[in-house]
């Protein structure tokens, strides 16, 4: 029970209580595990020793000398943060000698500190101020030499005021130890020490990723976000916890609220998903919530298709929605209708949306953008393991001895998981990165397998071949836990290293080494993302990943696993809740009569039997005139889907389009009725992150204007379609979902604390499941499913000589509607910078910042280019964040045959230089979001 007690006391220790060290702090007797510092011991006992440089998540610096304490029998005062407890120690934390020493330290700091607290952002929340007050330190009357340096305000994110800096070094350590970037350090040490980047560079040039964690740890007002200046005193702000609305990591964050408006953000430290870490989007990307562009009232087109969208009452709008959908159903049947649910919306809302489609409209035509990111994961892993989700937890990635990261630009697309990978490397793990681009993670990698786009299956089969032929595989695991090995090995037979090297472009030696690293580690984890899934061979790629993990027994244990990183904050939840055409909540197959019977009984309807259409099929059907009515919630297919021109035509051809969103997006502009939904900050619900962690959040502010939480809107629409559902709160909606969904069976709002619960959680007393497949696979035995390499649907040729790959940038998200409204993010990265290799650029006469026309068989766009070695020759990389340079006008709707996911990662394009004047303008709604100093 020792471990239990230790855990209860908040210690991570193996020592049994009888081995604990007994000591006295200010007359209080306590016992703590050996190795605990005096500071930590005192804090546990409720004795608050002042510190300026100490942070529990960073290494101990012992620099500020404020935590000095008196230890009886010791010659000098001891720094409590750096001194471990000893048996029978007697510690005095506030003796006259200690107080005198602290006063001296504070006086010296104040000598070099402007005493202009009235205009300091941290007034009332400043440790230096607090301690100067606590010890009644007088302001220095005759200061000696004083340092003075101009503040560094060169970046759009935050200001470093050198005069206020007390050189505690917390920012340096968080940047080095947590972010592993090291953008700053102490320079010119001595009287003139400053914390700067090399050669006085701005942070932008120094590799800073602007996560802002340095700002969060600063104990004084030396590092302050620009948005905070003048925006509210510390005592006027209330910090409210929520879940970040961007990627699938699901970081817990806190938003500062003043007068009903959000005025700041920081990481919360109580969720295992991010454990106090945060990235630039979480820290600086919340302005969209309060954008003047938010939809604040429903809009309808009273004058028919050609009339304008006009403001309307909810009553009128809802009536039109119900009538429009009902008319199509009556005239053409339910399958002329389709809905797109949203990975940005809550579990409760996704549950309602698919219920609306199936129970109220009577169609299985329900899908969402997971089709475009991880449909192949859901299909592939369901086949191999029986469950299409990340097998392990984010936290245990750091325990891996070897990490194989394939097709995941983790530090940019899932930045906080990127931190875990860097943490593993810091602890000595080997990192193998397989990616066509020299992504930022390659800096930390032992091996970079720079494969040609579209050759994942060949590479993965090739690694498996080596492991199999060399006898490095886990024969015991294969025999006991899996099936299909025979058939699989016949399929893998041709993938010898020479052949694979020819297909992938990866040298034989690198293949051998990667295979050896991965196979010979006791604990090896695979992390993958859309570089694997977004191919016509996406499902095969996922299966090949699964095969590799099963072959080496790297499943079911901490530090192992197959870990797909999901893109949207709630894309996992939207899938879990059955916003998919072929499965009901919990991946229960619509084709299974027993499943239909169960849901039909609960919902009081007869469910449609055949699986519905996927996103891309819905668009095709709409273009053909087969789908007549579409209800979009929180999706913007005009920008996010492949072959955007085709999507736009499809939407225009519809008889009736409803769009429920927070902005008048490109898709919403085509709608007959627009319903204003709310953001994460204005509603209650749950999100499920990429590690299957269901996390609850509460509203931070009131909905803007007449906007309503999406779950309320869906209930209203259903009611007007004749289905009054009595689940009138998010908690009640999740209760109903859980009662029908075994993997969510035990999940209730009231059970969800700061750590949430990881599904499967079948019963109300189940603690959740951090690691899947520990004893057996969800399907029983793991299935080796033979896969073979197929070439991408479109390869470069003479006319279109480049491969276009698409992806994300750290500083923006998806179609940009959220991130481009952040003054900081949009100032920092105002426009697309398509990456092109140095050699290709030289041949085309392109320099950094030049404008190019990029053209495919589907369309053409203009974009500025960045000349770089990040992409290999022959490859062009574009993000899909910028609508004025919309990459998806170029991509093809070529689909994976199983998962129907489009091949976003490979298209053939041509590139030509055009005049600089042809640079596409930043759209007006984003241009005016730029920080004032950046607007010209």
């Amino acid at each position, binding site marked *: 029970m020792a471990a239990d007690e230790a855990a209860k006391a908040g210690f991570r220790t193996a020592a049994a209580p009888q081995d604990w060290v007994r000591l006295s702090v200010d007359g209080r007797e306590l016992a703590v595990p050996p190795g605990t510092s005096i500071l930590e011991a005192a804090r546990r006992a409720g004795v608050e020793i002042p510190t300026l440089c100490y942070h529990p998540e960073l290494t101990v610096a012992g620099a500020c000398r404020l935590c000095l304490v008196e230890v009886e029998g010791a010659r000098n005062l001891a720094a409590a943060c750096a001194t471990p407890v000893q048996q029978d120690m007697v510690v005095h934390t506030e003796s006259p000698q200690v107080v005198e020493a602290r006063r001296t330290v504070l006086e010296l700091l104040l000598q070099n500190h402007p005493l202009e607290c009235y205009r300091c952002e941290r007034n009332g929340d400043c440790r230096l101020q607090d301690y100067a007050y606590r010890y009644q330190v007088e302001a220095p009357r005759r200061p000696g*030499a004083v*340092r*003075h*340096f*101009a503040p*560094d305000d060169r970046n759009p994110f935050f200001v470093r005021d*050198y005069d206020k800096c007390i050189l505690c070094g917390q920012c340096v350590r968080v940047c*080095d130890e947590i972010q592993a*970037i*090291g*953008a*700053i*350090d*102490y*320079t*010119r*040490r*001595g*009287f*003139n020490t*400053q914390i*700067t*980047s*090399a*050669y*006085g560079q701005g942070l932008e040039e*120094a*590799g800073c990723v602007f996560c802002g964690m340095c700002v969060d740890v600063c104990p004084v007002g030396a590092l302050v976000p620009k948005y905070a200046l003048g925006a509210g005193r510390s005592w006027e702000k209330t910090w409210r916890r929520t879940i970040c609305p961007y990627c699938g990591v699901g970081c817990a964050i806190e938003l500062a609220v003043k007068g009903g408006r959000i005025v700041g953000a920081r990481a919360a430290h109580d969720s295992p998903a991010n454990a106090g870490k945060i990235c630039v989007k979480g820290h600086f990307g919340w302005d969209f919530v309060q954008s003047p562009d938010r939809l604040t009232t429903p809009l309808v087109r009273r004058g028919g298709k050609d009339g304008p969208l006009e403001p309307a009452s909810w009553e009128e709008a809802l009536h039109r929605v119900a009538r429009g959908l009902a008319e199509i159903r009556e005239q053409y049947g339910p399958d002329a209708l389709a809905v797109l649910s949203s990975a940005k919306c809550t579990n409760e809302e996704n549950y309602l949306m698919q219920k609306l489609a199936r129970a109220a409209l009577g169609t299985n035509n329900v899908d969402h953008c997971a089709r475009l990111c991880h449909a192949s994961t859901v299909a592939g892993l369901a086949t191999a393991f029986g469950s299409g989700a990340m097998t392990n937890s984010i936290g245990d990635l750091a325990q891996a001895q070897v990490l194989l990261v394939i097709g995941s630009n983790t530090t940019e697309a899932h930045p906080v998981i990127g931190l875990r990978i860097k943490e593993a490397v810091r602890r000595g793990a080997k990192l193998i990165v397989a990616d066509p681009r020299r992504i930022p993670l390659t*800096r*930390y990698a032992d091996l970079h397998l720079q494969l040609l786009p579209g050759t994942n299956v060949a590479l993965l089969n090739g690694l498996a071949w080596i492991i199999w032929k060399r006898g490095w595989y886990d024969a015991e695991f294969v025999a006991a836990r899996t099936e299909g090995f025979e058939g699989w090995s016949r399929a893998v037979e041709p993938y010898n290293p020479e052949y694979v090297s020819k297909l992938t472009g990866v040298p034989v030696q690198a293949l051998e080494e990667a295979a050896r690293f991965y196979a010979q580690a006791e604990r090896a984890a695979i992390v993958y993302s859309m570089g694997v899934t977004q191919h016509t061979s996406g499902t095969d790629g996922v299966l090949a990943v699964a095969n590799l993990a099963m072959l080496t027994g790297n499943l079911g244990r901490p530090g192992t696993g197959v870990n797909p990183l999901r893109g949207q904050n709630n894309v996992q939840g939207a899938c879990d809740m059955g916003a998919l055409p072929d499965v009901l909540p919990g991946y229960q197959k619509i084709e299974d009569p027993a499943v239909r019977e169960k849901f039909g009984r609960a919902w009081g309807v007869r469910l449609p039997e055949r699986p519905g259409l996927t996103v891309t099929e819905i668009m095709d059907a709409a273009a053909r005139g087969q789908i007549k009515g579409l209800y979009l919630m929180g999706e913007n297919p005009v920008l996010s889907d492949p072959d955007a021109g085709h999507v736009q035509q499809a939407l225009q051809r519809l008889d009736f389009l409803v769009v429920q969103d927070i902005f008048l997006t490109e898709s919403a502009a085509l709608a007959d009725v627009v319903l204003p939904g709310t953001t994460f900050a204005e509603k209650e619900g749950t999100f499920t992150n990429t590690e299957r962690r269901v996390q609850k959040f509460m509203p931070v502010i009131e909905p803007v204007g007449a906007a309503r939480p999406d779950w309320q809107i869906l209930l209203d629409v259903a009611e007007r379609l004749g289905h009054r559902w009595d689940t009138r709160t998010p908690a009640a909606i999740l209760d109903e979902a859980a009662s029908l969904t075994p993997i969510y069976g035990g999940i209730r709002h009231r059970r969800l604390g700061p750590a949430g619960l990881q599904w499967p959680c079948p019963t109300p007393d189940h603690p959740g499941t951090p690691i899947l497949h520990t004893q057996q696979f969800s399907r029983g035995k793991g299935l080796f499913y033979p896969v073979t390499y197929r070439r991408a649907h479109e390869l470069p040729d003479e006319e279109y000589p480049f491969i276009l790959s698409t992806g994300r940038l750290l500083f923006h998200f998806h179609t940009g509607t959220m991130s481009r409204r952040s003054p900081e993010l949009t100032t920092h990265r105002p426009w697309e910078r398509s990456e092109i290799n140095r050699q290709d650029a030289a041949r085309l006469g392109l320099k950094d910042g030049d404008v190019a026309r990029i053209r495919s068989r589907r369309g053409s766009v203009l974009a500025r280019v960045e000349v770089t070695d990040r992409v290999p020759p022959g490859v062009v990389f574009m993000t899909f964040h910028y609508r004025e340079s919309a990459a998806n006008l170029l991509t093809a709707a070529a689909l994976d045959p199983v998962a129907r996911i489009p091949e976003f990662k490979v298209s053939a394009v041509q590139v030509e230089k055009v005049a600089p004047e042809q640079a596409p303008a930043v759209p007006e709604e984003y241009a005016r979001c730029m920080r004032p100093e950046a607007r010209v």
Partner: protein
Amino acid sequence: MAEGEATGAAFPVRRGGQPQEAADPASDARWQRLEELLAGRARQPGQLIPLLQEIQGLFGYLPRPALERLADESRLSLNRIYGVATFYAQFRLQPRGLHVVRVCVGTACHVRGSARIMQRVQEELGVGAGETTADGIFSLEPVACLGCCGLAPVMMVDETPYGKLTPERAQQVLRRYRREAMARQGRDPVAGAQAADAGAACDAHFPA
């Protein structure tokens, strides 16, 4: 640390340029040698300072491209390496000039007006403390003591001390060195000839 006083700037502004900038990596054997130094050692713990010393041995200072290579190979950030390099007085981030001018700012010289000497020298050279002139002839380094306080105020050019200075004398000395250097570089033969004469007349460094 070269900088003795607060400059008010967020970082040292280099006014002097880098006259003896290490040459193009492709055509310079020193860069090959750098790669050999880095191979295998860059990632070993405890190797940062020895490597910085060897890089300085190779180039005479720490060229930025060399530190960037070290950063790539060592997985340490350039910023961390720069922090270390600016901590130790032994490391130089700029190439040194042909002549190193050390102006004493120690106690005895301070009492005898070294501030005025320093100011005149800076004006004459057009560079600040720790910097090198654009023509590559002088590097200016303030020092705490040159060990001949009886001659205060003192400056030393390379190995030659000049004592009991006035600002005008300091200026004359520096002009002479400049003329000689330019003459030797064939930049101004007439001035060079004159400089040779002037040099002969200037042997008495310590006027009574």
